[in-house]
Structure formats: C-alpha cells, structure tokens
C-alpha cells in the first residue's frame, strides 16, 4: 500500500488517511507493507517491486468535482501522465510506472486510486467530500485485498 502526498497539505493527505484506516484493520506482522509519502519515482519502484499487488492512493490536483474517485488497474488502464502532479513530487507516479516498465520492476498487479482534492494548502484535515471519498476508497481497497485471504485483526473496530 503506497500513500503518496503529504498529510500536512490537507486533501493531499488522503492516501495517509486511508492507510490510517487500514492500520486499524490489518493484522500485525502480516504480508502487507504500508508506505506513506514516497516522494519520488525511484522510491515508489523500490517499494512495489516484487509485490503481488501494489495499491497506490493519491490526491489529484483540484479542478474537478472534489471527492471524485478514479480507479486505474494497470492491467487494463493507462495511468494518466499528470495523475500525481498534485503535490511536491519531483518525479511521481506516472514516471514510476514508465520507469518500472522499462526496467522490469513492476508489481504483478498495480491499482491506483486518485481522489480529486478540494484544497491542498498547508494544514491538517481533509475536506468534507474527500473525507467521505476516503471511506469509499478504504472499502474498495479492502475488496482488492480479498484475493489474498486477509482477515481483519482480532481487535479491529470500525475503521476511523
């Protein structure tokens, strides 16, 4: 699980927010690694290579309907070039995909969730539409994991 973006830039922290929800559900010592705020293509590649499934969650630059969720499955969809041009990434997700393909360093399966941001200014806390979208993304990600027999941790309550 890769959360791009910065949780100190409001909706840019949507990925971190979904990871926080996942942490409340995932068992300790499992086979899922959670990475937050990897700011560069090499770091993204290093995180997902050899993975059976990589799920990337990031904010998309404001401009369309806030809270809109776009899901891309690398097996069938083209990852848009400007998808992760939201925050301070030098070389972001789209470059990581292209480099990963060139170098043969892709996960077996890659799914990307892009959530349209409303605000990416400095500060903490998600906007209303993006907060709601976060719950939907969490549900979809949990669904993506079902092929891997992941059971919630014993003390898992409702995800925040």
């Amino acid at each position: 699980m890769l959360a791009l973006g910065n949780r100190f830039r409001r909706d840019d922290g949507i990925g971190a927010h979904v990871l926080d929800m996942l942490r409340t559900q995932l068992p300790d010592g499992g086979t899922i690694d959670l990475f937050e705020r990897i700011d560069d293509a090499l770091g993204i590649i290093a995180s997902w290579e050899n993975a059976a499934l990589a799920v990337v969650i990031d904010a998309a630059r404001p401009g369309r309907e806030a809270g809109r969720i776009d899901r891309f499955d690398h097996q069938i969809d083209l990852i848009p070039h400007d998808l992760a041009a939201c925050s301070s990434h030098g070389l972001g997700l789209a470059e990581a995909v292209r480099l990963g393909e060139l170098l043969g360093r892709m996960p077996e399966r890659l799914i990307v969730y892009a959530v349209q941001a409303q605000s990416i200014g400095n500060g903490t806390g998600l906007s209303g539409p993006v907060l709601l979208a976060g719950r939907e993304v969490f549900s979809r990600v949990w669904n993506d994991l079902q092929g891997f027999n992941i059971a919630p941790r014993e003390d898992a309550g409702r995800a925040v």
Partner: protein
Amino acid sequence: MNTKTIKVDYLARVEGEGALHVAIDAGKVESVRLEIFEPPRFFEAFLRGRQFVETPDIVARICGICPVAYQMSSVHALENALGLEVSEQVRALRRLLYCGEWIESHVLHMFMLHAPDFLGYEGSIEMARDHPELVARGLELKKAGNALIRAIGGREIHPVNIRVGGFYKAPETSVLRELRDKMLWARDAAITTIRWASQLDYPEFERQYEYVAMSHPHEYPMNEGRLVSSAGLDIAVDAYEEHFEEIHVPHSTALHSTLRQRGVYFVGPMARFNLNTSRLTPIAAELSAESGLDRGCHNPFKSLLVRGLEVLLACEEAIRLIDAYEPPVDCAEDPTPRAGTGFACTEAPRGILFHRYEIADTGQIRLAKIVPPTSQNQAVIEQDLRELVGRNLALADEPLRHLCEQSIRNYDPCISCATHFLDLHVDRR
C-alpha cells in the same frame, strides 16, 4: 521596444515548485528573480504549543526526501536546550542514519534529476530507454540508502525511531551486519558512478563564492561541528543568528539568507567538499584527484561529481560504523523538560540546516525557527543565473531556458521545503 517572453509551465526535475523571471534590456541582464511562493512558515507555527518530544515526528514531514536531516537538526537543538548529552553509541548510530539519507537523496538527484542534463535527455524516462543499466544502478543505490534508514529509523520515509535523547530502540548488531554486503556493493557502485560522471561534458562556469559548511576536527561533517566559511568565518553554531540573517525580498515569499555585512553565500555538497578536503577518505581523495577536483570544485555544474564523492564517503563511513557498532546500553537519555533555548546545525544533503527552539518549563515549544539549505541558496542561485544569462545572451530562448533550469538543478533545490510552484519567464527588451 521589442519584448519576447518565454514561459515554461514548470521547472522540470526540481523537487517542489518555483518561478523564474529574467529581464534582458538592450543586451544586458537587468534582473533575475527566482520567485518562490513559500507557504506561510507553516511548520514553525505548527510546532508552537506542541510538546518538544513531538518535534522529530513533525519536522520529518517537512520533506519527503530529507526527513532525517530535519529530525537530526531538531533533536540536537532540543538536546542543546535541555542540556542533554547522548552517548558515543547513539552519536555513531545517528551518523550511520545520516549516511543512509545522504546516499538516497544524492542518488535520487544524480541519476533521476541531474544526469539527463548531461546526457542530452529531456528527462529520466527517455534516459532510461537508452541507459537502463545506469538507472538500475541508481535504483539499487537508493535502495541501499533506504535500507540503512529503515534499519535504524524504523522506516525509510519519516523514520519513527528518532527521539530527543537518542532512539526508541537500538538495532540489533545482526541487522546492521546484514547490510554490510549491500554497503560494500554500494561503495563499488559509487566508484563506478564517479568515474562515469568524470567523463561527462560540463559547461565551463566558475566564479567566486563564499562557501559555508560545518567543520569537524576528526570527520567529514554531518551532525556536529563548527560553522566555517571560505572567507574566514569560524563560529559555534549557537552564534549562527549573530552572523546570518534572513531578509524579505519583494519578489519571493521565501526569505533570503545573507551573511551580515558580507552578503550572499553558498551551502551544500560543493561547499562541504571545498571546506573539508582534509577529511576525505583515501579512496575519495584518490577519485577526487582522478576527476580533476584535487584543488576543489568551483563549477556548480560539477556538483554531480561532488555528490558522487559524498555518496562514496557515506558508503565508506557506513561500513566503518557497521563494523564498529556496539548497541548502546541505553538507547536514550530520558529528557526532563526545562525552560531553555537550543540551537543546532547539521549537514542536510543540500547544505546546512539550522534549527532554534525555545522551550517553556512545561516542555511546550514556544518558538521554532527552521532555516533550510535551499532558502540559504536562493540568492546564490539568482547570482549564478544572472552571470550565466549574461554570458549566453546569444543563445535562443529555448536553449537559454534549458540552461537556466540546469543551473538551478545544480543546487538540487528541495523547494518543497520552502515553496509551491514554478514558471519561467524571459523578457527581452
């Protein structure tokens, strides 16, 4: 009046964003303005009222590429305020952690952001198509640096194991020993990279700078030392604000740093290298001579080479520290809150990073001041651009734009620590 404007939507291959305006009138450079639209000093304000123990985890989030630098400057400054001294083993672990960050940060810049300039590519993707082995080497080097950070810091992005007084948990000796082979490979890969970089074609560009860096009596500086300059400055870190000041310039919301009564100065790998050549390891010194840098490096375009030498130094230092590692008996001194002011400067990959904190007797932060290296280099970058543009007025706008961008990239500016977006405008009158 004949006005021509070149606009670029973004400054490619620079961490973060900024804007550059160049005005040329009758064949003379009138002004160069690097416009950094810095968000209000968010983190300095955000820290006020927080407990000092929260500081390393908060400041780590200022930068996704150099979180360790912010954590190190913060814990050293807070320990200074609290009168806390750490053990030699903690000191060594912190240095090893910093080695990891220097490796991964420098490598990212060298291979992904800077190398395309010298190989004639628009970006790293195009470069990777023709030079996959080069990019793959960069990837493995970055992973080596990340592995060090993960082993000591708990994770590679925003390490969680750093605390005021030391660490929450010391790594097992076996964990570090497992990294030794990886660091041996990384050292050899760094040597290969330096030899590759020494064959590149660099623009001729040298001018006078006042270099500022830390200096330590026994080691190439990372966490500790005095502040020195090539013009004779030699001060303790707590005197930083007596000699350096931040000034507001009209065209930028990022404050410019100057040396009082002297002006612009230069921080980063080239400054460190030029002020600490006596601290190079024998292998680094040999390769420095091989690369023609035995008398120093004064061409910022060759900073790529200097970063390669620092990657090698960091690998060698990591091997030495791993071999000498003894887990600390106590991995942290428990800090007792007290009112005070503390200062620290450490060598982030991009240059000196200064922190000052004022703490109340409750342990709450009353004031935080953070001066990133990229802010300190804003003025010298502008001066370089003015000089570069002046020497290249005969170039058409597009190659001139590219040269300006390349010049900014020499400094590996981590503008995400200070700014928001970039456009380039060249006005010819």
